[in-house]
């Protein structure tokens, strides 16, 4: 399935322990965040009621009336669990380890959020200033940030790589014109543009990706263009041309697979960049609309509530951890794909 060269690179990647383990942890984190509904949720995993089993996690909401409660809106499973325990009639609720969803406000009489971390309340990292569980906000926020970052990466790379290669392959006037266009385009102050656009349309996930992709693809074109200039003069490219292959075929079938190592080394850092960009936009209030769970918004709350150290503490720790992991992966990838075998990064 892989060429011997690629297999060799993968072996080298695996042999760089720090990066490899970071990669495994990263994958586990993503997988866990995909299953976040099973770990962190106000909906129960399983409810046994009058001999029937219910699995409320995914699917439609189950009104309280279904379990003999007196309200038609969504069942409060935490209360239901207590109730079943008290009744002791064989009914039972199995809750996830953290029984809160990232949107609900766990408010109390005569006390006001943010509440400090408490094992008794199952708020392991406390709550934010609206009484929402910080672990839940962090995990769901991570899921959004990481997929945002990945989607952005795909979009940016598709545009950047294609255009860069075409510029390098065709060269001439096309290259010259696009170089100038990109120079101008990349001088547009991207943050201001986002701020202006966000003030006009409420940004959602895809609008933000679109805006950021508009400005994110340019950086890649330079490297791709140079790499392609080099590759197109190689014999295999000339041979393909001599056989009558179209330009598009030569670029996408022959050249890109050969310059892909350049792209791959950039990728982990782009992911880190994407996370940081989304977090900073949310921090400034120009990111995803509330109440979307977001690290930037938590950071903002941490700044406003300096005494509530657990807010800023959690989000900064989470951020540092994620970025370090991504950087470790990036380093290892760069080293594994380095054509100069004996270079070491320390």
């Amino acid at each position, binding site marked *: 399935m892989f060429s011997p060269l690629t297999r060799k690179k993968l072996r080298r990647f695996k042999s760089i322990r720090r990066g490899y383990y970071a990669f495994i942890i990263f994958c586990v984190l993503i997988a866990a965040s995909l299953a976040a509904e099973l770990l962190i949720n106000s909906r129960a995993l399983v409810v046994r009621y009058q001999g029937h089993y219910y699995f409320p996690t995914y699917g439609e909401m189950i009104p309280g009336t279904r379990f003999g409660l007196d309200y*038609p809106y969504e069942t409060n499973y935490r209360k239901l669990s207590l109730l079943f325990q008290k009744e002791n009639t064989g009914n039972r609720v199995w809750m996830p380890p953290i029984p809160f969803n990232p949107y609900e406000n766990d408010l109390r009489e005569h006390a006001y959020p943010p509440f400090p971390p408490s094992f008794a309340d199952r708020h392991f990292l406390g709550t934010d200033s609206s009484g929402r569980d910080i672990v839940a906000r962090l995990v769901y926020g991570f899921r959004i940030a990481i997929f945002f970052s990945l989607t952005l990466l795909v979009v940016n790379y598709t545009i950047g790589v294609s255009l860069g290669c075409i510029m390098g392959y065709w060269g001439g006037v096309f290259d010259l014109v696009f170089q100038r266009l990109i120079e101008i385009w990349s001088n547009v102050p991207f943050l201001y543009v986002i701020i202006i656009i966000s003030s006009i349309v409420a940004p959602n996930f895809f609008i933000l990706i679109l805006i950021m992709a508009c400005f994110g693809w340019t950086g890649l074109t330079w490297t791709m263009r140079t790499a392609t200039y080099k590759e197109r003069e190689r014999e295999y490219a000339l041979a393909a041309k001599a056989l009558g292959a179209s330009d598009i075929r030569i670029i996408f079938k022959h050249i890109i697979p050969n310059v892909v190592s350049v792209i791959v080394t950039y990728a982990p850092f782009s992911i880190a960049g994407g996370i940081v960009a989304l977090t900073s936009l949310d921090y400034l209030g120009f990111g995803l609309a509330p109440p979307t769970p977001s690290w930037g918004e938590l950071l903002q709350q941490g700044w406003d509530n300096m005494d509530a150290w657990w807010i800023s503490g959690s989000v900064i720790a989470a951020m540092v951890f994620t970025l370090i992991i991504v950087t470790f992966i990036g380093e290892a990838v760069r080293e594994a794909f380095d054509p100069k075998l004996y270079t070491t990064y320390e």
Partner: protein
Amino acid sequence: MTDFYKAVRNSTFYESITNNRGIDMQTKWRLISFTVIMIMAMAAASMAETPHLPADIHWLTNDSDPVYASSDAIKGGALNTAVLSFPLTFRTVGPDSNGSFRDFILNNNLSLIDIHPNTGNIIPELATHWAFDKDGKTMYFKLNPNATWAYGKLVTADDYVFTLEFMRSKYIVAPWYNDFYTHEIDRVIVYDPYTIAVVGKKAEPDLYLKLAISPTPRHYYGALSSDFVSRYNWKIVPNTGPYQISDFQMGKYIHFKRKKDWWGKDLRYFKNRFNVDRVSFTVVRDFNMLWEYFKKGKQDVFGLVMPQYWRDKCRIPIFENGYVEKAWFFNDKPRSATGMWLNMDRDIFKDSGVRYAFAHAMNIQKVIDEVLRGDYYRLEQAYVGYGRYTDNTIKARGFDLAKVEHYMKASGWRRGADGIWEKNGGRFSVEVLYSLAEYTPRLVVLKEEAKKAGIELRLQLSDPAAAFKQILEKNFDVAWMGWSTSLRPQYWEFFHSVNAHKPQTNNITNTDDPKMDSLIDAYRNSLSEADRIRLSHEIQQRIQEIGMFVPTFMIPYTREAYWRWWRLPTPLGTRQTNDIFDPFNSVTGGLFWYDQKRHDETLKAMKEDHPFPPVTIVDKTYQTEPPVK
């Protein structure tokens, strides 16, 4: 400035002082005075005859309403306070002049008359006497002959004539004022240098709110020219009030100094007020920084309306040792119509049952109790605090799931699989447009509670300017906002059908109701107070029946922290007081004073670590709302 006086202030406009004069100012003044006399002479000559006062004129004055300043007040000291940003200009008209700093300048520009903050009666200011004409659009004023501009020039009738010329001038680049002083105020008639009449364009109720204009110093401005806007950006224009800007540094500070021999200092309603010698506004750009400055004693007062400040952040030694005192003062004034405005041009809100259900699905009380710490109050309707014009029997719709169920079912909706109401393929999911991130904690609670009632709120935070534009263009489902207030309830702009279904009007709910229209027309055309009050109640009932507005919160008080050498009268303020440490407001401001002895005593005690008993004053003299739970 207080909202109460907005109506007055809108009609009372002027310019203030300078001390950046050239050396040859004396000569220039003489020239200007000469020109003024020439113009007056020409104006007089152009009239067929000098006007005569009507014979049956009935002069009124007010020297019997209670005074509200403390006779214990002593003069002296300096108040150090802050502004969050440096003003863009010192002009009070023209481009960029509409900032919050303008109030400090305007409050030192008195008008002919004002309104007593506790009784609501007219009180003298620059005029000593006033009279109403039978035509319902003219008022006569006898000017106070002692009134002077800063630097000693007397305020005379011609300065009021100049106000009209000034405000109508195209050089001031202020279309609103151009329009107001052209289409609302007809003319100023001069009978002698100290007797004038101000004539409105049409007869209307509460005429005095409009006709109490302010003078503008002709001797200072002379003839206006096209360079007005740039020329007067940083000029300090002579004013008639107790304070004048003495010096300033761009971007850093502005100092106001009390005039040594202010003409008004012994007048009944000004006595024992405006006590501090100097008021400094330092620019502090960050609210958290301001709090730090206050704790260090570099600021004298700090607003504590926000619950977390009043309750948590004050648990620090300077409060517990009594060096800083706290005051909670309830006022009684028109409350901003703050809440959720439903756009009735949206299909979903065309059904009154759905609007009622929406109101019953908003758990405002929970937000008050659990987010706002019980410190805010439920606003019962859009027009609270307008005295007899308010119908106090109207109560807001409370959170009630059974009623939501009832109204929704009656309108043919049923709960969908996700618990949200559905009808004909549509869900009860609406967007709530709001403009400040500070409101998010309140809205997320409402959102979670509304879900129980089967209504999905989608929160949309937009920046204030963009949100307001979207609202005025009627491009929203639910708008979370409040309107500013005026002395009397205003209905036409918000609820009359002529303003519905078109952009850039304040009828943001698109209220289009024939009964409402006829009530509003009658209200606007009536000159009888009793009729207007009755109609006002009927309109408020009708608003409740239509149910396009879900009232949320009001804050019927002000709270402040101040170092203990600042003293306040009893009661701490007036019915209309917005800020008990307002240094300038011509009717409610300047009631506090500085106590040198206590200052020395406090500094000594702080050095020796000797505490005083902590002080928290709660003044409910003017409280009208039910007490805090």
